[in-house]
């Protein structure tokens, strides 16, 4: 079996590609090759030994889906790809749009639908949660600088100011909202989201939905160490049935198909979980899941290949991941190969 995976950017803001590959390769039944699909010749995953058997540069989805499909077809002719697992937020809409054309080529995917991707978009999540009685911080969408003056009075400071795709700032007063608004609208465009700040601890769940509403597996984690970019650099699996039941409810209501990460905050005041985000792919810490007893990336492979699998029922509580920075040494020849020929 030949599986192509994107997101080999194992940087300080890591893509999930390498942990997805590690998980798949860790499964005793896996027998095949991994093809890395990369956007940059310095993605660290290219140079990691025993990860991808081959790597190919592909164009950014923003260059056009026809170009992307053409490149994948060319790679497919050489490698006979059975399955593609895109792992980056920014490419998921594109891959969801070309999945039928990939299928015609004989390449399988296991992706959320466009409708599911829209539900979890930051400008729609509030409505989804309120209609299903899922706690979510109050928010307002700003589509022009005049909208800053329309923020309701019941929004107490601090508030969180978020970009539509990435970035979030905590603003302690009106002037800080204005600064954050201009910074983010210049970078990410509109709308900008102003969200109620819930004081409490953050919890994350990595999960896999089969597309019918069934949860194949879910592992909750508490971040033990957070970088200045807000990325978890260490974490521990925890045992909280409330958190798991809430995650299963979200998967059931969305009929989620694919891997996902659910981000919550547990209010110090009420002890209730508030859903902050649904990330429509496995997180960069997904390798914790197989080590806690649920190999969710390999389960996704099985589902994509049409196998029927039983949902996971348990996992080891207290399993810890600690991320590490590690210098890889390569040579000019390898770098030249990927930069000039687009493959290695």
């Amino acid at each position, binding site marked *: 079996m030949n599986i192509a995976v994107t997101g080999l950017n194992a940087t300080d803001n890591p893509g999930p590609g390498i942990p997805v590959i590690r998980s798949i390769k860790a499964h005793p039944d896996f027998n095949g090759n991994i093809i890395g699909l990369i956007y940059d010749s310095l993605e660290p995953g290219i140079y990691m030994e025993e990860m991808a058997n081959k790597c190919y540069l592909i164009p950014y989805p923003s260059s056009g889906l026809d170009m992307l499909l053409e490149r994948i077809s060319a790679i497919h002719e050489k490698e006979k790809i059975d399955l593609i697992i895109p792992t980056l937020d920014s490419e998921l809409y594109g891959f969801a749009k070309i999945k039928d054309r990939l299928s015609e080529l004989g390449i399988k995917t296991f992706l959320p639908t466009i409708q599911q991707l829209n539900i979890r978009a930051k400008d729609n999540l509030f409505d989804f949660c309120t209609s299903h009685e899922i706690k979510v911080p109050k928010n307002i969408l700003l589509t022009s600088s005049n909208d800053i003056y329309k923020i309701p009075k019941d929004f107490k400071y601090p508030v969180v100011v978020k970009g539509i795709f990435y970035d979030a700032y905590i603003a302690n007063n009106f002037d800080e909202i204005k600064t954050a608004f201009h910074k983010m609208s210049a970078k990410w465009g509109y709308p900008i989201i102003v969200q109620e700040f819930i004081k409490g*601890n953050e919890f994350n769940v990595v999960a896999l939905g089969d597309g019918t509403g069934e949860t194949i597996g879910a592992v909750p*984690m*508490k971040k*033990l160490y957070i970088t200045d970019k807000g990325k978890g650099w260490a*974490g*521990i*699996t*925890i*045992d*909280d049935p409330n958190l798991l039941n809430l995650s299963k409810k979200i998967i059931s209501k969305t009929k989620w198909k694919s891997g996902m990460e659910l981000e919550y905050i*547990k209010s110090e005041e009420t002890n209730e979980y508030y859903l902050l985000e649904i990330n429509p792919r496995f997180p960069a810490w997904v390798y914790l899941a197989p080590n806690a007893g649920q190999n969710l990336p390999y389960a996704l492979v099985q589902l994509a290949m049409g196998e029927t699998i039983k949902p996971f029922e348990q996992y080891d*509580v*207290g399993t810890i991941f600690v991320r590490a920075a590690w210098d890889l040494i390569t040579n000019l020849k390898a770098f030249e190969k990927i930069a000039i020929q687009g493959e290695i």
Partner: protein
Amino acid sequence: MNSFNIPPNVAVSDTGFVFLPTTGETFTLNEIGKEIFKQLQQGKGYDEIVDSILSFYDIDKNSFERDFNDFVMQLKNYSLVVEL
């Protein structure tokens, strides 16, 4: 003095390392803290605990009661003990 209950999923090791699985938090107890925590876990009440501690440690009952109350207050703050 009230009785206390330690949630069944809270684990304490022989070294005094405590793990709260619902939140992922960990704590470290000193020798006497570990001893009291284990006795609370066994369901012992204040009277039993005070007898056992005073028989091993050189401390008067009033000082122990004050320290015990402070300790239990901290355990309650971290959801490591529930007052019955």
